[in-house]
């Protein structure tokens, strides 16, 4: 088991390393991407460009530049090419915004998804069944940023029921924090609730016909207890797994568009702006931040599985 964990963690490090190299490479091989030229402003002289190149080390070999960048990133000294703002500070500032969005939305889509899945499994073939199918199809077919923008316009701007975007820190005013996040949460949750209900329903129906459930029934346990204790518990495992993975994806950049639409000023929105300017340090840092969450959650899920079920452990 220990060997498995070590191997899983080392492959994680390898993946993160490759991601960082790739991002750095993409921005270094593009034509017209020379940061020195764009940092020098309008109509720069060759001398100015040369000076910037030397000051920032753009004249050194690419791998030296990469090593310098990663060292600075590790010590938290890395700054943006254009705003000179410290990148790590910016990410630390944006992270609570992104997490507030992701955690709230994840709780909503999980809770609603489980309830809907449970109801539709118990009453298979009825209206609730059709409802989750429709919800699931809508969830995977609708661009979240479009729904978000329209909701923000009509419910926020026109009717004034919700605030028109923006973020209030939790520590400042918990009520206003939640009030500002309700629409973003619901928008993000809309995309996934139906899928969760559907996955849970499939697993519930499978488990309902399993032998240990029939045994429990035969013992004379009431229907509700069988459902909650023997069926739901088992069927929740794959749903929780999925939930972990999706949470990683949302934190790791999946929420960029929602952040931008509702002007939440999270990490994703920061990255989107930086990419537009071809500002390498923030892009690299945020991509690593995002990839880190995705990879860590993946590893945790694998390790948890191996711990729960020895059959999965390779050798």
């Amino acid at each position, binding site marked *: 088991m220990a060997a498995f964990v070590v191997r899983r963690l080392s492959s994680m490090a390898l993946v993160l390393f490759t991601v960082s190299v790739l991002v750095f490479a993409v921005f270094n091989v593009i034509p*017209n991407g020379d940061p020195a030229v764009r940092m020098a402003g309008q109509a720069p002289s060759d001398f100015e460009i040369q000076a910037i190149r030397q000051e920032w080390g753009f004249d050194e070999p690419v791998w030296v530049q990469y090593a310098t960048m990663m060292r600075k990133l590790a010590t938290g000294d890395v700054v943006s090419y254009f705003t000179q703002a410290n990148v790590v500070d910016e990410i630390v500032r944006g992270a609570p915004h992104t997490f507030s969005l992701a955690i709230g939305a994840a709780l909503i889509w999980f809770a609603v998804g489980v309830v809907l899945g449970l109801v539709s499994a118990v009453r298979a*073939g009825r209206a609730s069944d059709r409802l989750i199918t429709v919800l699931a199809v809508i969830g995977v*077919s*609708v*661009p979240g940023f479009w729904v978000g923008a*329209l909701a923000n316009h*009509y419910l926020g701007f026109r009717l004034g029921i919700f605030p028109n975007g923006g973020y209030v820190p939790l520590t400042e005013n918990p009520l206003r924090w939640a009030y500002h996040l309700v629409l973003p949460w619901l928008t993000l949750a809309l995309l996934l609730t139906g899928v969760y209900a559907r996955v849970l329903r499939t697993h519930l129906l499978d488990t309902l016909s399993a032998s240990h459930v029939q045994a429990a029934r035969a013992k004379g346990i009431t229907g509700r207890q069988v459902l909650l204790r023997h069926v739901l518990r088992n069927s929740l495992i794959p749903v929780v797994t999925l939930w972990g993975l999706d949470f990683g994806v949302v934190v790791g950049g999946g929420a960029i568009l929602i952040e931008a639409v509702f002007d939440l000023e999270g990490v994703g929105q920061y990255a989107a702006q930086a990419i537009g300017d071809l500002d390498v340090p923030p892009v690299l840092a945020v991509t690593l931040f995002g990839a880190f969450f995705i990879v860590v959650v993946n590893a945790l899920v694998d390790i948890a599985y191996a711990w729960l079920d020895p059959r999965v452990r390779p050798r």
Partner: protein
Amino acid sequence: MALRRLRRDRAALMSGLLLLLLVAACLAAPLWARHVARTTPVANHITDTVILDGERRDVVSLDGIPIGPTWSGRFFLGADGNGRDVMVRLLYGGRNSLLIGFGAALATVLCALVLGLVAGYFGGLLDAVIARGLDVLWSFPAILLGVALGVALALGGLELGPVTIEGGSLLIPVLVLSVIGIPYLARPIRGQVLALREQEFVDAARLQGQSALSIMRAELLPHLTSTVIVFLPLVVGNAILLEAALSFLGAGVQPPQSSWGNMIGEGVQLVTSAPHLAIVPGLMLVLTVISLNVLADAVRDALDARLNLRLEH
């Protein structure tokens, strides 16, 4: 049971019909542009006027608000901030969105098939390298990767030996989207090939002296067709959605060309003064992707394929 299946089929039939209709409408874009709207998707009419209910009105008012839907002839669905005909842009944009969606999906499927077959069949070091590569792509935050690649390529274009792609080319979003999509498809295919490889008919083919290439083509590929058929509409739908997301962030189809994605993006900017600019292309996109997904659902039921595919957008 039979009744339920029939209803399912009817939904599939209707969504298939809807999809055909949408494609046909987009194909007819030049007809509408030339004979009804009498303009082109990129022509500005910012200083023009149009007669509405016997009244002469500016296409774009003096304070910059474009005209809403006229429901007739010119500016059927209104104008955008530059005084361009939204209906015409919608149809031409649909061509681009559909082209990119289908193009990217086909490229994804082809690459994923090759990678999955090679990795799964040969195993060993080759498999380890490919599987690690897919892991890396998979761990990339999809939208970040897409936006980074899209912006970088749109700015500088791409020069790969003799091949040069201009910065504004539609091939760039196709390329970006197919790269993003590959791991989602290549991983399940590799898994399937790994399982198939152990079966007797593959051993038999090998003992007959068939080459690896012909085993992959003649023995393994046919087993993968149902996977591909089920995935294809899903991948198309997802590519269209992702194109919209990238265009919204300025990394997809580059102006002045239109796509549903960049029309939504422009519309969101002007949503307070002219909400039709965001609503109309969004509805077209949603209708298209819903019909693709319903179709995929029905196909999966029909083939009774138990597959798990997770796409993100």
